[in-house]
């Protein structure tokens, strides 16, 4: 009797569950936020419209609203199917809006359990609603942006980033988040660099040609990236990074900290403007690459120190070493820390041609 009652209750209660059948909802794959009039936000949603011939049409919906999550409700008002946010792959925020703080916008995103923390969060200087409107490929733009960022993280210059890592960096003591910076490029979307954030506000940028160095510094281990080096102002070589290993050694932590950056890298030569290549030349290329990297790294770290942001997470490493570590004190010290960069580059292969 008890068992029968239990089963009856379970079966009857199943009526309370909210069904969301795949083809009866409007999937949102990307959302964009622009500043609107009267302190409102202009929210753009990207929704794929799947055609019978397996192609996809990119459809965008735009609405003005004071709170970002309210947009979903407003979108549904003008559509035959309810909008759902479980498939959001990319969140794009206009930089003007981000100056007021990113967190107020993405707050709704972390409160929604259906949004995966592997979604990308990115910023742009262009108008997001226009950026998301174009038909850049046979996919919708949410998938397009997500795929673009995906492959650039796996085999490219973009360091690992997503919603989860953003919040991890944001809440970590002694580390500041960064997010990819996108821009419209004629008929496509381009990764133009990385935006650096202090707390949740954008304070600076790292541009595209510095990304190789930035990724090497920020991630302990990296691989699959290309690096263009000038040798003696005449020749050029394109190097491919097989692997890199970056180590930070913090000394003299309490009174006058010093940081030693050790970068080990294995490279191969992909292309060389001169046809002759011998041992001597290889060593020349190695030194040229080391010098270029050192110069870029010093510039980047200087930029970080001037902006007083710490995307590498030196503070976090320091806090792990000392009990007396204190966030405010650290950021006071941070701009004056002396960084020493040691590089150990090795060209292990030169390709098939001899």
């Amino acid at each position, binding site marked *: 009797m008890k068992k029968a009652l239990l089963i009856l209750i379970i079966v009857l209660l199943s009526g309370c569950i909210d069904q*969301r059948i*795949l083809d009866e909802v409007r999937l949102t794959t990307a959302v964009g936020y622009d500043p609107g009039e009267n302190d409102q936000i202009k929210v753009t949603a990207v929704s794929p419209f799947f055609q019978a011939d397996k192609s996809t049409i990119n459809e965008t919906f735009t609405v003005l609203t004071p709170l970002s999550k309210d947009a979903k409700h407003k979108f549904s008002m003008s559509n035959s199917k309810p909008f759902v946010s479980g498939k959001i792959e990319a969140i794009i925020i206009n930089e003007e809006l981000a100056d007021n703080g990113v967190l107020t916008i993405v707050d709704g995103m972390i409160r929604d359990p259906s949004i995966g923390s592997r979604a990308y969060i990115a910023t742009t200087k262009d108008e997001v609603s226009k950026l998301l409107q174009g038909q850049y490929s046979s996919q919708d733009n949410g998938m397009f942006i997500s795929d673009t960022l995906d492959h650039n993280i796996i085999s490219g210059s973009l360091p690992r980033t997503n919603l989860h890592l953003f919040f991890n960096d944001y809440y970590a003591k002694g580390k500041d988040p960064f997010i990819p910076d996108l821009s419209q490029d004629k008929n496509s979307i381009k990764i133009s660099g990385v935006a650096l954030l202090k707390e949740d506000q954008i304070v600076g940028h790292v541009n595209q040609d510095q990304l190789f160095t930035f990724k090497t510094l920020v991630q302990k281990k990296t691989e699959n990236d290309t690096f263009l080096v000038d040798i003696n102002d005449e020749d050029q070589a394109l190097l491919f990074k097989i692997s890199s290993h970056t180590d930070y050694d913090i000394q003299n932590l309490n009174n006058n900290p010093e940081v030693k950056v050790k970068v080990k890298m294995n490279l191969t030569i992909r292309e060389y403007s001169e046809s002759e290549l011998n041992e001597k030349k290889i060593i020349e290329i190695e030194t040229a690459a080391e010098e270029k990297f050192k110069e870029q790294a010093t510039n980047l770290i200087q930029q970080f120190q001037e902006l007083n942001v710490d995307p590498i997470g030196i503070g976090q490493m320091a806090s792990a070493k000392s009990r007396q570590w204190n966030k405010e004190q650290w950021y006071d010290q941070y701009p004056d820390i002396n960084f020493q960069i040691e590089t150990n580059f090795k060209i292990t292969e030169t390709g098939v041609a001899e």
Partner: protein
Amino acid sequence: MNYELNRSGDIMNFKKWFFKHHKEQNPKNNKAEVDDNLFDLLKQLRGSNDFKEVVIKDGIKKVKLFYFHSLVDRKILHRDIIPYIKKEQVNSVEDVREVVPSENIETTSDVNKIQNQILSGSCMVQVGENSQSVALMRAKINKNRNVSIPEVEFSVVGPKEAFVESLDTNLNLIRKRLPIPELRIEEMTVGKITKSKVAILSIEGITNEENVNTLRERLQSIEVDSIIDSSYIVQLISDNQNSPFPQLIDTERPDRVAAILTEGKVAFLVDGAPHAIIAPTTLVEFFSAFEDYFLNWITASFFRLVRLFGVFFSILVTPLYVAVLTYHYELIPKDLLGILVTSRREIPLPPILEAIFLELAIELLREAGARLPTKVGQTIGIVGGIVIGTASVEAGLTSNVLLIFVALAALASFTTPVYQIGNTIRLIRFPFLFSAHLWGLLGVSICFCFFMGHLLRLTSLGRPFLEPIYPPRVKDFKDAFIRLPWTFQSQRPVEVQAQDTMRFNKKKAKEKKEIDE
């Protein structure tokens, strides 16, 4: 008359409920009194037209032959019995014994015995009109199917003999494979009307006596009057008769029976059934084909894993489809979204109805195929499958993605080597499907837990059914999901609790191999 009988029956039932000490009347006891003398028995038998009564010799002492012409081989009668009796002087039953050159002669005056023998194909010779003592001679007609190729458990390599409907032939098939005196065959009869002969097979010194005793007790306690096939017994003696899972394996391969007997398990055969029943067994054993032992252990293990995957796939794929499409669109990989959405766009039915529609179509095809003659059945299967499948997709009733899943699931459910468990898999898909619709993935896991709980409680002949997974017995994993090479199989399964746990010396088995190389 009938009405009165019914009434008296009703009254007896009432009495049984209200008076505890009332003795139930046994119909058998009633009959025994009537049959107590030969005259009454003959009178009863004469009621059948196929009962023959022939006077062989007329003289001072009439010699009469009684037999059922439907049970007796007349060749034997005319060649081996009648001529000899006619030739010689026969004055008593003992003389018959002297005269007829056969070892299968018995003289008795036990009416029960006479009745059993005549009804199982003996002929009776009576000397003198009113003699109570008679001679019984076996003259049973042997009309049996020849031993043929196993059809359900077919294997490409290995022996190609299958059991037939005759117990003697079946026992011969097993005994010739186990030429040891320890092989013990215990016969008994089950079923008041059918008097089916059941033979329990075990190996003395290896088989745990507890298993044999449990099986014997259960067989003896069967109260059903007719046992037509061994599957009746399987249902009657199963530990849990309300379980959809079969708890005893039936096999048509004598080689498999011989193999499991050496493992320490018990088997029994029923006269008239072309199957042997193996006990105790585990769930995993249902997914091991006997062909696994004929193949190299690596390939055999791979096929076993494929089969196991097939089972899970067959049970879970449609429920998962329904659950994900109804509740968890977030889980669909982004590259698959377009395919799923476009395939379902035209379909007016929710995923559950779509799934039920297709599952039902497949079940109908299977049932229709099983009921029709082989050749027509095959055509129905192929034509029905293709035509109904494509038509329902074109009509927009089902999505083509689901059609692929359902067809694959049906295909996967055919991979089980034991027919009975295949039916179980067919059945338990539906509770999973409904719970997937009601509560999504949570429902699938609830249903899974429910079945796990049920399986954990199941036993086969009192031994745990989910062994070696639970209770965890690492030793028995050597022949569960994968089959390790023969040198690793030196110990009998823990499951059967054999008297002698060692099959052979592992060290010696390995040494020998090295010398050969």
